[in-house]
């Protein structure tokens, strides 16, 4: 119903006031050190009760705040699963690598997913593939076998990355919300382009590239794979004939410029949701806006910690939602 989520959207509108705009990002960039940046973020209300938080604990706290708000506002959070599948497959990848290498480093997991990461680890340890959700079973077993038998980490990665994109795309197609459908389309297309460029730079064969690329409506995976096997120029020629023609220029600049372009593309697409008063769209846009904000802050903190130049950090910072 179009009038649904009226209360939730109004709360989101009030919460959007606390989102970072370009001026706040400039303030963070102007901070002289990593510590000053953390202090500035704490002054803005970031983090919890911890007096001296690390960057990761601060960012994890903010992500938790977003999902805590969503849990209050949306009775069935499965409408946002499309945003969590990449975390699920990341956690699955981490679990498979941990089990295959016998390591016990639990810092690799992301806290929010549709399946708890502890359950995922247990499933991989027990090889109990049947307990996984349907779409995860096949790729999980295949990736595990690939790593366990061939020790080919890259093969394991492409199986799970491709499965994650397929899951995002399927969830996007199934959604009734236009924003979620478009998010899935842009996510898969941009991931395909990134993979194709990486494969072109490392000279991968066409079969390998085709296996790594997920299908989507706006970009033919088979044509992209063929172009990637020929080289970066062929990819650019192909993209020039698609909806992603603007990507050609940034692709030639650097991979980080292209990643920034992809994120900005999604942010520009969701920005009109600030003026919608009903429906799930503004809530989904808020989640994406917050994730984008957290990503930008992570880039700034990491840049400050590694004493990168302001210019270098600024080039990587994404456009803000508000």
């Amino acid at each position, binding site marked *: 119903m179009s*009038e649904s989520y*009226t*209360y*939730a*959207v*109004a*709360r*989101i*509108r*009030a*919460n*959007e*006031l606390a989102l970072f705009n370009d001026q706040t990002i400039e303030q963070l960039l102007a901070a002289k050190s990593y510590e000053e940046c953390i202090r500035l973020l704490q002054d803005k209300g970031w983090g919890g009760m911890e007096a001296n938080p690390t960057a990761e604990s601060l960012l994890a706290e903010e992500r938790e705040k977003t999902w805590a708000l969503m849990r209050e506002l949306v009775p069935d959070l499965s409408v946002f699963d499309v945003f969590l599948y990449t975390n699920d497959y990341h956690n699955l990848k981490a679990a498979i690598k941990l089990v295959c290498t016998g390591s016990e480093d639990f810092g690799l997991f992301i806290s929010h997913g549709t399946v708890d990461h502890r359950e995922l680890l247990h499933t991989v340890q027990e090889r109990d593939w049947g307990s996984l959700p349907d779409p995860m079973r096949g790729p999980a077993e295949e990736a595990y076998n690939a790593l366990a038998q061939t020790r080919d980490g890259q093969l394991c990665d492409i199986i799970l990355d491709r499965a994650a994109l397929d899951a995002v795309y399927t969830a996007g197609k199934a959604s009734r919300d236009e924003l979620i459908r478009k998010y899935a389309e842009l996510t898969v297309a941009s991931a395909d382009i990134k993979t194709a460029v990486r494969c072109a730079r490392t000279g991968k064969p066409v079969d390998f590239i085709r296996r790594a690329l997920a299908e989507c409506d706006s970009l033919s995976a088979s044509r992209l794979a063929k172009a990637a096997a020929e080289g970066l120029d062929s990819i650019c020629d192909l993209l020039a004939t698609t909806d992603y023609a603007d990507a050609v220029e940034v692709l030639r600049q650097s991979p980080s410029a292209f990643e920034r372009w992809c994120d900005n593309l999604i942010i520009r697409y969701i920005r009109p949701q600030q*003026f919608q*008063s*009903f429906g799930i769209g503004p809530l989904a846009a808020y989640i994406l806006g917050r994730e984008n904000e957290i990503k930008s802050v992570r880039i700034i903190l990491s840049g400050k910690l590694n004493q990168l130049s302001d210019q270098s950090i600024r080039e990587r910072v994404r456009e803000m939602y508000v």
Partner: protein
Amino acid sequence: MMANMGIAFAILGAALAACLAGAGSAIGVGIAGQAAAGVTTEDPAKFSKVLILQLLPGTQGIYGLLIAFLCLSNVGVIGTPVEISLAKGVMYFFACLPMAIAGLMSAIYQGKASVSCISMVAKRPDQFGKAMIFPAMVETYAILALLISLLAISGVGAINI
């Protein structure tokens, strides 16, 4: 039987004016109330501003009540009983319809406009004055319907058939 149909039509018109305009207002105030509650949850200081915006779609219900009251009074249901012919009863029925239909629709759409303006106040409380104007524009059409229903009911009363 036919002699009594006049009063029945007139009462039906009055009932529709009160019911449809009232239902529209209930829907409009209801959805605006949800949005107002959302903003007040995050910022209780905005209560008075969002309350005014929430109440704007409530006027159609009052207009409907006014028309129903006037119609019932003219046909003698309230006050002195009078003889109402079938033709006159049907005229009262149609005289009530503008308020009934325009009241229902304008209240719902005014409620939606109020929801958007409550969001506007949540982000820009200094623009409260402008936020009031947008839903108030929808009110124009409820007032026009009220006016035509008022004139029609008064006019029908003066006709001797």
